[in-house]
């Protein structure tokens, strides 16, 4: 066993030095030799005794934080510790909607930073994340939604985020399968962000993991953090199922498990963990090339590259760590969407699953230092944090390296004590 491990270690060291780039040439070369030469995308080392920085949670946000610590701040003595498999949390369970049409300035800044980084992510990471800026449309189906979205469109104009409020006729032009006339909720218009879209969720996690590993960082999977060590109010390391590991700084990026980690570190969070679910239909021919969100009836829809209709709905109303949602929510979502997209009624649903999302009171995330010195937290992305992964990683890395970042300063934990909320209940009141 020990020998086997040593061998794995050796192989992994080798690949640090000779990480091959993906290219058209590489595909052709591998095609010619029966794809025998592809190497592992990242190493799977055993943990070292200590690191400068430990990130707990290898979801998109944790991996992006590690990546930008290395890329922007030259900090590469980093471990990312994951209790399951990387990308297996919400990152690999989400419906991948990417947009930045939020109301408040701090949100627009971090979400638009993220969206713009998605535009070049495949090139930056040398990994195809299949970013597809196909356009995102948020339907207005009540008068108050019209007012809300007109306000958002104007806020976006001031923030330099390109969105527009469009007419029902334009909605129909962009999405022919939509039923505009109701019966319960007619389509009265929509907030349209042309450069919003989707990306391949796993690829985002895998691409960052590969790039982190390439910089010499250790991604340690199947290793659960079970305790946070501290001395004199400073973090000194973590206890894990693979032993104690020391660190100078700790980044907690565990979404639904933030409360559990905060408990280990000795503080409380204004966060509740609840289940959000999604489902996909059988694959069908291309019928919809935009993303549509219908917040009044609680449903959103896009078509995957495989042809499946990807559907997301509302959250449960109670605390839950089981990664499965209540059946009646899936039922409500489908019922609502069938009303707006009658052709869906003939589709069979193939799979349904849930993720545990971390909800804050103002529906905005927390990127912050904590009462424990050297310990930082990135959480509260709730139902909408896939779209923000690169921006969040960028800001979190700067926060951890320098103690402050223009992207994250407004999202500190202290905003709850100070009553300085970043209210995004219009933009994020429904799952997305």
């Amino acid at each position: 066993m020990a020998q086997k491990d040593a061998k794995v270690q050796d192989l992994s060291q080798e690949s640090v030095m000779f990480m091959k780039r993906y290219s058209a040439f590489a595909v052709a070369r591998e095609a010619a030799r029966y794809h025998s030469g592809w190497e592992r995308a990242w190493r799977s080392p055993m943990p070292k005794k200590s690191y400068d920085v430990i990130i707990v949670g290898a979801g998109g946000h944790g991996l992006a934080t590690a990546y930008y610590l290395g890329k922007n701040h030259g900090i590469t003595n980093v471990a990312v510790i994951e209790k399951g498999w990387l990308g297996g949390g919400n990152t690999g369970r989400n419906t991948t909607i990417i947009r930045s049409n939020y109301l408040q300035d701090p949100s627009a800044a971090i979400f638009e930073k993220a969206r713009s980084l998605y535009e070049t992510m495949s090139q930056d990471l040398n990994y195809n994340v299949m970013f597809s800026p196909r356009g995102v449309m948020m339907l207005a189906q009540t008068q108050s939604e019209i007012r809300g979205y007109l306000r958002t469109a104007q806020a976006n104009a001031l923030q330099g985020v390109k969105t527009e409020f469009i007419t029902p006729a334009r909605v129909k032009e962009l999405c022919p399968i939509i039923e505009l006339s109701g019966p319960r909720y007619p389509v009265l218009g929509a907030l349209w962000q042309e450069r919003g879209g989707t990306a391949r969720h796993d690829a985002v996690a895998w691409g960052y993991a590969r790039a982190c590993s390439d910089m010499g960082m250790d991604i340690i999977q199947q290793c659960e953090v079970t305790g946070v060590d501290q001395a004199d109010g400073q973090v000194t390391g973590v206890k894990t199922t693979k032993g104690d590991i020391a660190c100078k700084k700790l980044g907690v990026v565990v979404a639904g498990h933030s409360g559990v980690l905060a408990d280990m570190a000795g503080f409380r969070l204004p966060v509740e963990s609840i289940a959000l679910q999604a489902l996909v239909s059988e694959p069908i021919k291309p019928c919809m090339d935009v993303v549509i969100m219908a917040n009044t009836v609680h449903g959103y829809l896009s078509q995957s590259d495989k042809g499946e209709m990807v559907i997301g709905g509302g959250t449960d109303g109670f605390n839950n760590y089981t990664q499965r949602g209540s059946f009646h929510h899936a039922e409500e979502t489908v019922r609502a969407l069938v009303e707006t997209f009658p052709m869906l009624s003939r589709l069979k649903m193939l799979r349904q699953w849930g993720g545990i999302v971390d909800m804050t009171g103002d529906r905005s995330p927390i990127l912050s230092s904590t009462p424990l010195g050297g310990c930082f937290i990135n959480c509260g992305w709730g139902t909408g944090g896939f779209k923000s992964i690169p921006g969040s990683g960028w800001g979190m890395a700067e926060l951890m390296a320098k103690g402050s970042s223009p992207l994250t300063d407004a999202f500190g934990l202290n905003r709850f004590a100070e009553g300085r909320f970043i209210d995004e209940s219009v933009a994020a009141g429904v799952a997305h």
Partner: protein
Amino acid sequence: MLILDCPYCGTSADETELSPGGEAHIKRYGPGSSDTDFEGYLFGRENPKGVHFERWRHANGCGKWFHAARCTMTLEVFGTYAAQTFEPPQEIKDKISAKRPGWSWRDFS
């Protein structure tokens, strides 16, 4: 589907009949309290992975508020009890102790 027995009308009510009311036994702080206490009351939550106490309303039934003791990790229900109490009844605490020895939640155990 989550099923809770309403301690008032006795109905075994499924989730669609109930509306969730969040964490139970929260101590309210008002004017004159410290900022930390007030913040804790408004926003601080236990959010435990395991034993939890919550408020629920039998909304599409008798309309009354009540308490439930539940496990957020397995969705197991330990019991429900009346709303007019600051603490879960001993009988429910004993039930939890039988199934989750050594449990604790805020000051209860």
